């Protein structure tokens, strides 16, 4: 497996994701500059967080037209795996690879804290092996994280088991108070119908290093390593 991390002007979590895949998960990983057109033979593409193009206009709107994104879209359409984290999630929705969109948080404020999430989908690669009875402590850091989609889309997500995670409290209860950004159905992450493209608002790469005294993020990323090279 070879992982590729896209880097747009204004990406700023690329280095953190790279560090986790290289130094902690011990994977073959490269960075893919936005002006490039080739994925360098990567099997799994990660679109990291940050503020691509300053998040001006709409988060992810400008990055979506970068040359590298044409290659990422083509890769996904061929069934290749893609994970978007935070701003990466926003870029993937702008690119049409994931349903729905991310609106300004209900508080209208940027929020950075430990969030708790609960796995939902039992058929998606990322969540299938997780314990649906426990919650995972994963940091969030975003201003535009309120998941929104039309009623029809939400129904489709439910019908096809496409909801990856929901926000909950530290005891695993899904409450309106634990839905800090106001997402529909407390949605923290979704996958596409084919379940090869994943989007997460929380940052699993911020919870992998023992030095940080929280390694819950590894539970989310380790299932990805079990993939067979296409």
């Amino acid at each position, binding site marked *: 497996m070879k992982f590729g991390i896209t880097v747009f*002007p204004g990406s700023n979590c690329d280095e*953190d994701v790279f560090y986790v895949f290289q130094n902690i998960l011990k994977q073959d990983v490269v960075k893919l500059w936005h002006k490039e057109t080739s994925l360098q033979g990567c099997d799994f593409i990660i679109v990291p967080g940050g503020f691509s193009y300053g998040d001006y206009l709409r988060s992810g709107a400008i990055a979506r037209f970068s040359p590298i994104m044409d290659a990422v879209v083509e890769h996904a359409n061929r069934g290749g795996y893609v994970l978007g984290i935070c701003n990466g999630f926003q870029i993937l929705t702008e690119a049409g690879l994931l349903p729905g969109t991310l609106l300004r948080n209900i508080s209208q404020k940027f929020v950075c804290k430990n969030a708790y999430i609960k796995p939902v989908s039992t058929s998606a690669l990322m969540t299938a092996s997780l314990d649906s009875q426990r919650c995972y402590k994963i940091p969030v850091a975003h201003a535009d994280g309120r998941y929104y989609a039309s009623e029809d889309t939400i129904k489709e997500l439910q019908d096809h088991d496409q909801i990856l995670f929901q926000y909950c409290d530290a005891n695993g209860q899904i409450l309106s108070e634990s839905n800090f950004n106001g997402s529909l159905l407390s949605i923290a992450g979704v996958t596409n119908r084919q379940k090869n493209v994943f989007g997460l608002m929380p940052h699993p790469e911020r919870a992998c290093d023992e*030095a940080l005294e929280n390694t819950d993020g590894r539970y989310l990323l380790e299932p990805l390593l079990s993939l067979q090279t296409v």
Partner: protein
Amino acid sequence: MKNELTTLQTARDLGLLEEEYNRIQEILGRVPNFTELSIFSVMWSEHCSYKNSIAWLKKLPRGGERMLAEAGEENAGLVDIGDGLACSFKIESHNHPSAIEPYQGAATGVGGINRDIFTMGARPIAQLNSLRFGDLSSERTQWLLKGVVKGIGDYGNAFGIPTVGGELYFDTCYQVNPLVNAFSAGIVETDKIASAISYGVGNPVFIVGSATGKDGIHGAAFASKDIGEDSLKDLPAVQVGDPFQEKLLLEATLEVIASGCVIGIQDMGAAGIICSTSEMSAKGEHGMDIWLDEVPLRQPDMLPFEILLSESQERMLIVVHKGREQEVLDIFAKWDLNCAQIGVVTDTGKLRFYQHGALAAEVPAHDLVLGGGAPVYHREYREPAYYQQFKKFDPASVAQPRDYAEVGKFLLRHPNIASRAWVAEQYDSMIGTNTVTTNTPSDAPVVRIKGTSKAILVKADCNGRYVHADPEIGSAIAVAESARNIVCSGGQAVAITNCLNFGNPYNPEVYWQFVKTIQGMKKACEKFNTPVTGGNVSFYNQSDDGGAVFPTPVIGMLGLLDHYENKMTLDFKNENDPIYLLGELTNDISCSEYLYSYCGIKSSPAPYFDLEKEFQLQQAVTQIIAQRLVQSVHDVSDGGLFIALAESAMAGNKGFEVRTVDPIRKDAFWFGEGQSRVVVSVKEAQQSTLEETLRTLKIPFVLLGKVSHQDFTVDTKVWMNLKEAKQLYDNTLASYLK
């Protein structure tokens, strides 16, 4: 364009004194034209020349075996931290811009301080900020605070460097003039340090980053006779920060420095192109010929003085080895940034600026700069009457409270003490995955340096109320408390940067505060062996009635930990762990939040402080942490002992059962802010070893009680439980700032 000759009146309009105007004519040997005079006016301003403060700043200790750059020599301080690495760090004020437009004022402050760090080749890894506002219940304060916090967050978050801590105080003296100080620290390999210098005749000079607009040139523009109504209308009222541009500039700058083609580099902050061309040239003892037509402009038809003085953000000046121009152009093109050669290095020692083929200004670099020809003044100072008045305070005149639990609750929810989460959560504190105190808090944030076992600790600290009451003791306390916070977190205090926020230096009583502050800071820095690596002076911070704000010398301290795993945390860990108070019991309520806010007594001297005892306490804390004798360590500061206990309990989701220890006043015991005390919790099995160690070290201590399940119990009375405490502590800021 005519570049008219100037008169004494023009000089006065530009804020220069008659003696300064005469001196300029001597330097030039002729009457300066307007462009030249405006150059002198900004370079000899307080902001660039420190003319009213440098004589005293030089008395601060600046040397040390770890210092790689002396204060004022480079854009920021530089400290050797071993393993071939250095830490560059600095604090700077953006008070006045933030008072006009809080969002952009604070945002551009963050941008400026980070450029000071990465212009040295260092990648920023941690930011702090230190904020002061007026009464939290006033609409103006709420507007300022919301704007400042959003400005800092939007800029720092997009820039991608964690904001790991800070401080926030409210007092009516800051009602009109808030203080917004931003701190950044970065790491550089010692063989990749860049310097703000220029030399080598024929070497090209580049400007990179944003285009230049008419930002920040009001003073000069209004003094210019040459400028029409239309042009005045074109003056932007505020500078707008662009964190996206700054992020690109960071990456491109570090890349160009690593390429080895850079001779010298300096960011453009105050006084823009003229400041960087003159400081770099003076340092390298060379000159420059600059072609202003080559500077990328945001607004058309800019006059020479406008281009030279513009404070447009996100720009750098770079001097490059001749022949390597293309490498530089390629790097900046990769990052979609402007990069234009605007001149060459000469051996004249003079700066010559050309526009449309004509010489617009010619000035000697050396005479413009601090340490060169810039004036140095010794201002008069006088002890203000209030100082002796405050000392007459008699604690016996204060009746002890009837309901202690009520005081505890009052303090827990007081805006100066309550949780800062409303602010802190708007900042990305975790990006970079190095903030090792995210899940377990310490007195000072600990930031790991990847690729090593090391961590830096950073802390901003100043209690302006103490400094106002007694500038000499108050500023020493600011240094001592920052060091104490670092020591309580397991680190070693290494060096400081300072941001000296004062009123009008021409007021002798304000200047007395400044002088005494420097004297106190000097003593404390010498004691803790923490030299001053640089910083910033902000004068003219005035309040409503024209009076000055509290003298507020904010200390930004750098600490070091060889192994980040040896950090110490402040949260109570296990029920039944005994709790001790280390340090002297002092019968002191002076200047405490309790006395000032609860009792409403505003005149009292600074709290008890003994520098020698503080030092011994910190040595002892370092030793007991190293010997792993304690479970938690937290210093006693604002709000006193009760608040320290409550904070450790809330962080650990525990309670405590403690008792008052005679013979001092009960209010002094629980709420007094006498310095040099820390609260530790310990495993029962280690109790006797701890006690023995403290006795050997001659550190006074008392057993207060033990960690409990949920209740905060004092002298067998439950003051509140954990849940109630959190309700009070967590919701104060949000309740005002909906």
